[in-house]
């Protein structure tokens, strides 16, 4: 463990929540209760007493805030992911002990690992700072700097030995009960509410590191990875918004529930609308809201019943490319019709895989074809893939480890395969 070098000289500390999360699915009572339990975790090992005071009371030792972005201290928040929270070490300064949570995180209680960020686990960590502990590298310590996922039932959670040692170095040991375990003091807070219902028990959450996405699109600088009724978002900085995928229908408001797969997606440059494709249909979204009804792909000029594997807008000429199998069409957004002479064979994109999962253009202007677990990069304006293509997607895009097995390069070029039923 590591000590910050400061500690409280009193043994009863007051706390209050000054601002609650604006966007969290946790209600205020749940947040208050979780804070109370998180403080009790430290109290039970040290004999410290924590007393909640009225939220109007700005004199409390530990003031808790949910804040966004810059919030008048030296640790601005950075939106979803990245930094989650911080707290100030004990002292005489008004901000000493104060604890701030990034309001733009998806704070959860009772959810599985990967489903948002467990507020109780983060609160326990931050209150460790508020009591004078620094970050620890001990494997089981709650004071490790990285978020480790939920820590289980708040009522049963107990600090690791490393954390107890650090705390007791500062505040001494509490007298234990006869069975050797500390006795939890009765809490003044209400009992914990039941955990939120699981997101969707019927559909297993896919593993992003397995690749094989249905669609990938650059939407306003963020890369969206669609797989079944889920999607992940990668921020322009390269950070995943969350390792847990979001539910398709919770985000894309109005998308019919029977649509379980997005086969292609792109952001239309001329008006910023986002187009999602599934089967022979497409849907137009303004931001997250659906505009109108499902529309047939024939509106793009494609043959009736035709579907698409990939769609992207190429900044070089402003045209939209629609790919199916080994052929593609080029659509003129201004004229609202296909360019003549299409479809053409995809081999024009030298080195590109047939039937790509999707194609998208990065913020730097490079074009990326995705298929399976690999990507092919085409430098800005080029139709020839880079010599190091294909590369595994995981390490570059999805915070996944590089494949441990030797690199297997999917063959590119035309495919002339025959598959028999018994093979």
């Amino acid at each position, binding site marked *: 463990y590591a*000590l910050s070098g400061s500690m409280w000289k009193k043994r009863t500390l007051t706390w209050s929540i000054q601002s609650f999360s604006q966007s969290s699915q946790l209600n205020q009572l749940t947040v208050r209760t979780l804070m109370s339990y998180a403080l009790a975790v430290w109290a039970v090992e040290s004999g410290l007493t924590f007393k909640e005071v009225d939220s109007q009371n700005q004199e409390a030792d530990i003031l808790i805030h949910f804040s966004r972005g810059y919030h008048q201290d030296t640790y601005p928040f950075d939106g979803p992911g990245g930094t989650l929270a911080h707290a100030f070490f004990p002292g005489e300064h008004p901000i000493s002990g104060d604890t701030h949570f990034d309001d733009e995180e998806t704070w959860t209680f009772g959810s599985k690992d990967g489903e948002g960020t467990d507020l109780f686990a983060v609160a326990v*960590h931050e209150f460790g700072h508020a009591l004078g502990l620094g970050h620890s590298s001990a494997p089981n310590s709650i004071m490790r700097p990285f*978020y480790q996922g939920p820590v289980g039932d708040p009522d049963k959670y107990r600090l690791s030995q490393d954390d107890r040692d*650090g705390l007791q170095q500062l505040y001494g040991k509490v007298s234990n009960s006869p069975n050797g375990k500390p006795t939890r003091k009765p809490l003044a807070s209400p009992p914990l509410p039941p955990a939120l219902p699981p997101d969707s028990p019927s559909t297993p959450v896919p593993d992003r590191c397995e690749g094989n996405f249905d669609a990938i699109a650059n939407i306003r600088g963020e890369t969206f990875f669609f797989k079944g009724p889920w999607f992940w978002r990668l921020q322009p900085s390269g950070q995943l918004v969350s390792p847990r995928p979001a539910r398709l229908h919770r985000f894309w408001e109005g998308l019919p529930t029977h649509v379980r797969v997005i086969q292609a997606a792109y952001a239309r440059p001329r008006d910023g609308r986002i187009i999602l494709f599934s089967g022979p249909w497409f849907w137009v979204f303004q931001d997250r809201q659906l505009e109108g009804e499902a529309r047939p792909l024939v509106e793009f000029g494609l043959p009736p019943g035709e579907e698409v594997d990939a769609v992207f807008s190429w900044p070089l000429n402003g045209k939209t490319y629609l790919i199916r199998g080994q052929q593609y069409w080029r659509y003129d957004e201004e004229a609202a019709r296909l360019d003549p002479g299409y479809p053409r064979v995809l081999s024009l994109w030298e080195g590109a895989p047939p039937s790509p999962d999707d194609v998208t253009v990065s913020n730097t202007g490079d074009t990326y074809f995705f298929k399976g677990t690999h990507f092919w990069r085409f430098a800005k304006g080029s139709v020839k893939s880079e010599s190091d293509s294909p590369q595994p997607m995981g390490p570059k895009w999805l915070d996944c480890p590089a494949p441990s097995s030797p690199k297997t390069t999917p063959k590119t070029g035309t495919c002339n395969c025959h598959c028999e039923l018994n093979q």
Partner: protein
Amino acid sequence: APIPRAQDVSLGVDWLTRYGYLPPADPSQAQLQSLEKLQDAIKIMQRFAGLPETGQMDPITIATMHKPRCSLPDILGAAGLVRRRRR
């Protein structure tokens, strides 16, 4: 070892500085960080995070730098404020 992208090195230096592994740049000296100091800082970060101590901006190190975390530095800079104890 694969050569890290300039973007990753830049992100790494920023990250290592923010969390206390590298001293803040001194504008008055306009001094570049030395490669040795950078590698030492990466090793300390890797030790702290329980990663293999390669001193390189390898993919697992870069991935760790992208993990959600607390905003406070891991290495507290003010002299005399930190006392580390090992069991």
